[in-house]
């Protein structure tokens, strides 16, 4: 049910458009690619990559919270400029960082707020009458929409920056430092590990079908096949969980999880947290004093 959920029909695949199989294969492949891309950048030698992951996760949460609390576009602008500066220092490809956020966000968040611009009561920016239809955006509505879209964009930027500069293993250990229960962190870690195995398996099944099917199948057939595939994956999941548990037992797993952490927070790490806090306070305060 993600935003890219519905578009093109499977049955129309024969007239040159993308079918449901290709769509799923494409989505899965994109996720795997995204993960590889992220892990590569998370291990490159940028400024943010060298910071202590625990303080980095805390700083990221502070920045997202500030974006949620800010009530003015200026405050959000301050936050975004800060994010861009850090991204540049961390060698995150600028085009990717800006494009990914600004191509996606106005599309999804923007479409949502467009009707609101016209329905909010109050003074109008202009009023064009086309027959009986009046095109009259409200000034208040426009302000609200700009604020809303920039808030979503800044939140997403911070989250993207955090993810592309931190290896997943470090994110998890930071969660541990934030007192998230051990069981949860362990399950998250193993999920991430087996996720790619499942995505890979699913892609294999889909491609195998794609390469063997000639002609058209009915919607009912397609649905039966896809649910059969899900059931098949579920049965593999059961078998695999049994195997994994045996392997864990064989290596001496007794219910306790021990991890070693060699993180040491230096003055630069604390400076990062302090400056994030200052920017956050400024961003929130600007809106409250300006109005």
């Amino acid at each position, binding site marked *: 049910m*993600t935003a890219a959920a519905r*578009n093109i029909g499977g049955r129309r695949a024969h007239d040159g458009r993308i079918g449901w199989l290709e769509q799923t294969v494409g989505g899965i492949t994109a996720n795997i690619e995204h993960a590889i891309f992220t892990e590569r950048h998370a291990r490159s030698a940028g400024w943010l990559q060298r910071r202590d992951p625990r303080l980095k996760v805390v700083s990221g949460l502070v920045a997202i919270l500030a974006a949620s609390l800010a009530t003015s576009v200026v405050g959000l602008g301050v936050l975004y400029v800060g994010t861009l500066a850090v991204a540049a220092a961390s060698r995150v490809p600028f085009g990717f960082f800006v494009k990914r956020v600004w191509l996606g966000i106005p599309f999804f968040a923007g479409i*949502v707020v467009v009707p609101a611009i016209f329905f909010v009561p109050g003074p109008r920016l202009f009023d064009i009458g086309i027959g009986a239809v009046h095109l009259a955006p409200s000034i208040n509505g426009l302000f609200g929409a700009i604020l809303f879209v920039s808030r*979503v964009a800044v939140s997403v930027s911070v989250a993207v920056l955090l993810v592309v500069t931190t290896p997943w293993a470090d994110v998890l250990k930071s969660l541990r430092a934030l007192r998230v229960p051990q069981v949860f962190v362990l*399950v998250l870690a193993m*999920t991430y590990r087996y*996720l790619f195995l499942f995505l890979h398996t699913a892609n294999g099944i889909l491609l195998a079908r794609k390469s063997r099917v000639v002609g058209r199948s009915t919607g009912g057939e397609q*649905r039966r096949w896809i*649910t059969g595939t899900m059931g098949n994956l579920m049965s593999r999941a059961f078998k695999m969980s049994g195997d994994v548990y045996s392997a864990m*037992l064989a290596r001496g797993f007794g219910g306790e999880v021990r991890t070693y952490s060699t993180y040491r927070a230096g003055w630069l790490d604390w400076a990062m947290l302090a400056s994030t806090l200052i920017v956050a306070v400024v961003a929130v305060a600007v809106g409250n004093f300006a109005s």
Partner: protein
Amino acid sequence: MHIPDGYLAPAVSLALAVPTIPVWAVATQKVKKVLNNRTVPLLAIFSALSFTVMMFNVPVPGGTTAHAVGGTLIAVVLGPWAAAIAVSVALILQALFFGDGGVLAIFANCLNMAIILPFVGYGTYRLVAAGSPILSTRRAVAAGIGAYVGITVAALAVGIELGIEPVLFSQNGHALYSPYGLREAIPAMLLAHAFGASIVEGLVTGLGVAYLQRRHPEYLTSLRRIFAPEAAADGVVARRPLWQLVAASVGAAAAALAVVGLVEGGGDPGRMFGSDWARVDWAAVATMLLVTAVVGLILIPVVYLVLPARMKRIGTAFAAVAVVAPLGLVAPGFAYGEGSTAEVQSAFGYVPSGMRDVSGVFSAPLAGYNLPLPFFNEANAPLWHAALGYELAGIVGMLVVGGAVFAIATLLRRGFSNDAGTGGAADRRSEGTVA
């Protein structure tokens, strides 16, 4: 259904942790108690499975595709507590790593999709399955219905969470967060799901359970016992009779209508659905209901006896609808939102000029869905006269439309039987197949 950051006020996002975190804690305890150390790999692998299932595009009747969440499917196999953890982990992974759904909004998303969805879905499944045999078709259908209800209720929750934002947080007249109020957000979420994504979820879950029944029945029996020993339902006979089911669904529908009506009426029970119920003359309504009941008791059996066998069921159903139709007359103000210009005037204070121009062009023979006789549509005729007129007009309308469709269909069939190309016809039939 994934809420991104920025849609919810931070106060709301964090407040939703209050119901979410205790459920996680209880779920972890419950699952741990039953499975001991085996929990970790099983939950991790099912979370990965849940994530993968969310990636699948499912072809929907009508030519589009949609995603499934699979929460109810996992709840049917592992029990709702384990499903809550598995889907939560998949959602957290999506938010932290793939940017799908917000970081601060994690609690909201987990509450909707990982707690409300599997628990409502599983509860409905248990209710409909009613202890029927584990491999019966009823179980598969029950799982489908459960998934449909579960995801629709989850969508309602999203609508409420988004809808309260402009009520709580506005500044200088503009909304700070999601700009739509309850009256827009709830119908938007409910309708989009009830006629789209929920159908997919129901189909996938029902067919998925049917597949497991056929190929891996052991997952539906022995495993359920491992995870939720008190809930192991092998079941032999349907213990819950159908009338209880019907009563439960009628009750649920009435409750849902009451909630929607209260929201529409701004929380005042006297103004349900935004109408002034004090204006209703209840004595006249009682007479009308009595007349309607008598008409129904006579008309429906007659229709059933008169109609040819081929049309008995559908014809009787239509006649029943026509008999019940005038109940809408009870509602003061708009009847069925098809108000005449005068009603639009009184509701909005003005009439759009286009509407005024067009409405005079054609005066239908059965204007106002009533028969053009003073007995039925006099200004001060008793309500039951109008109701009778309504019913007669409805039946006349159905006969006219049915006759027209029948005539056109006959003509078309004659036209098609002339050309020999049956391949096209067979193809069309297969296109229309809906499993």
